[in-house]
């Protein structure tokens, strides 16, 4: 997998590159807009990571030009701007995800991996992880054949986790997906719900929902 990182803050760029490289991605790095644009035009990348405030050519402009020739390449915006209007504008211009500085490196990795495997979110009507079963049509959840009664939010949380089986979902991804930004002020609402959900699905004997330290959660069958 080859990624392009365009970020004018050299220190940060090196740190991001190091983190991505240690995850076995090959990363090209550009410190200015024009250089980034040239690289994007020359090579065939699997994913772009763009800062918005860049010298010479802004990240928004690069995004617009890239989208004209390549509508499918995933683009992750990494920026210090977090106004809602900025986010909306960039999603409209074709960004796939948006990460606000400062961010945890693990969060960036989670989002990059999620974007690269974006097409593969599970679409089956019945999702299964080990003996846990979620039916999207009847909205019924069973574990080992026993019906588990969930509230709407608990169901939404479990469905999000199961649709992304084996992937790490960060707390802020879960918050945005299951709740909304208005819940940011609620102390650890995601943790509280996950804890509660674990109790309900009887996760003590065979652990399915894993805590990924410092990042978030993932659901997967214990195989290793």
């Amino acid at each position, binding site marked *: 997998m080859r990624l392009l990182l365009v970020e004018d*803050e050299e*220190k*940060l760029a090196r*740190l*991001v590159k*190091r*983190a991505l490289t240690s995850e076995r991605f090959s990363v090209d790095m550009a410190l200015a807009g024009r250089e980034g644009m040239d690289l994007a035009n020359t090579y065939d990348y699997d994913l772009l990571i763009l800062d918005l*405030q860049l010298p010479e050519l802004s990240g928004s402009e690069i995004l617009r030009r890239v989208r004209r020739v390549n509508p499918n390449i995933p683009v992750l915006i990494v920026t*210090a*701007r*977090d*106004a*809602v*209007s900025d986010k909306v504008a960039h999603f409209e211009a074709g960004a796939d995800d948006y990460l*606000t*500085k*400062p*961010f*945890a*490196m*693990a969060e960036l990795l989670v989002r990059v991996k999620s974007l690269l495997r974006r097409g593969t979110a599970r679409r089956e009507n019945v999702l299964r992880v080990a003996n846990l079963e979620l039916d999207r049509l009847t909205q019924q959840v069973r574990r080992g054949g026993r019906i588990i009664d969930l*509230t709407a*939010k608990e169901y939404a949380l479990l469905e999000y986790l199961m649709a992304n089986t084996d992937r790490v979902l960060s707390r802020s991804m879960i918050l945005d997906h299951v*709740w*909304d*930004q*208005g*819940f*940011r*002020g*609620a*102390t*650890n*609402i995601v943790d*509280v*719900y996950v*804890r*509660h959900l674990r109790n309900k699905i009887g996760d003590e004997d065979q652990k399915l929902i894993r805590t990924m330290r*410092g990042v978030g959660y993932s659901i997967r069958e214990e195989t290793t």
Partner: protein
Amino acid sequence: MNVRSIRFRLGAWYAGLLAVLLVLFGGFIYITLETFLKKSLQDTLAKEARTIGEALLSKVRQTGDAYVVDEIEEHFAPRTTSHFLRVARSDGSLLYQSGNPQDGTFDPLTVTKATLGQPPSWHEERAPSGGKLVLYSMTYTDSGGIQYAVQAGASDNQIRRVLDQLLVSLSIALPLIVGVAIGGGFLLTRNALKPLRQIAGIASKITSRNLNERLPDIHTGDEIEQLTASLNRMMSRLEESFHHVHRFSADVAHEIRTPLAILQAELEGLLDASELSPESRNAAVSALEEGGRLSRIAEQLLEMTRLEAGEMLSAATCFDFAEMTRATVEQMRLIGDEKQIRLRFEGSQVVRVLGDPVRLRQVVVNLIDNAIKYTPAGGTVAISSEIARNKAILEVADTGVGIPHEAIPHLFERFYRVDGARSRQLGGTGLGLAIVKSICTAFGGTVTVQSSPASGTTFRVELPLESNGVNQSPRVS
């Protein structure tokens, strides 16, 4: 009609002023005319008396009394001119006395007789007809030393009639002139003030959303053009400073966040390395936590700057505040359960407000989260949503220990902490309630607090109802 409008006040002022001036002017004309007419009547009478003396009485010994009488009748025709003439000898006998005047304004027989030897004098006496008789009396001494009392008089009826006519004319003309002036003035001020009304109309539509709009340029060369130009200049400055705030917050965001991102990444990298001693690891973890707090503070400060600048309001929609609150309470129930605090929601009404549901949810979440934090286990947090006095009301009441009386006025200030150590320990930034206040203010509402050690603390949010119309809605075009 608005009695405080410029148009009304201007009209009232100049109509009043005009009326006063016209009354003064009429009075002046009246007095001048009266003086003039009286003077000319007196002149005529004095001249008649003197002429009788000098032209006729001087030669009465040659011509005889009958001639004098004939001459007076012929020259002065007192009957037709309605004048009174009398010539008396020194013994009091009459040489001549005019007859009844044609207009019958006085009776010659009753007119006071003159005393001989007096200097020429004027006096007026009441005539039986109601008017006044103006009387001139003089003593004529001929060359032989014989004295005659000569009197000439006339009624002032003529003068009265002219003056009465003037009074009638003035009392008709004056209200007419004032009336026409008021009417004309109203039309004039309406036309003159029309551009002002237009300016006010356009200016009131300009909000933070469309600051780039300007009043239409006019080139009338008058005060309106000056006003328009000044208003446009003012809006340019406003737009500039608005953009400045916007740019500033973006710059601050970038300048603070990027180093924070580097700091965080460096520390994470450090923690991933395994050769750290436990002390170093603890130090790095602690630094990472503080970095996290610093970024939350930066984020919330920026959020407040944007709220105060009127940004973020574009997402305003009309929604049921009570339903949103109810759903939020349901979501937070589990957080309460973990601390054995019961959340109770009350509210059956639909409470429609205009605002950004995500932002206003943040208000509800922050207040409930705050209440849970400061309520001991086993307590209750009661949340209610209702309509009172045409406002949407949200109340979050806890059974906590209450807030010290002296802390209440500062509660919504940035970085104010009632119990600093404890709140930091709970991971607070000191900005939660300040954000609540910023959001409420941005959507035209208020937030207040009541607290007592006995019954706990109650936060009360008031927001304008959607049905209150455009005027009370937030700054959204």
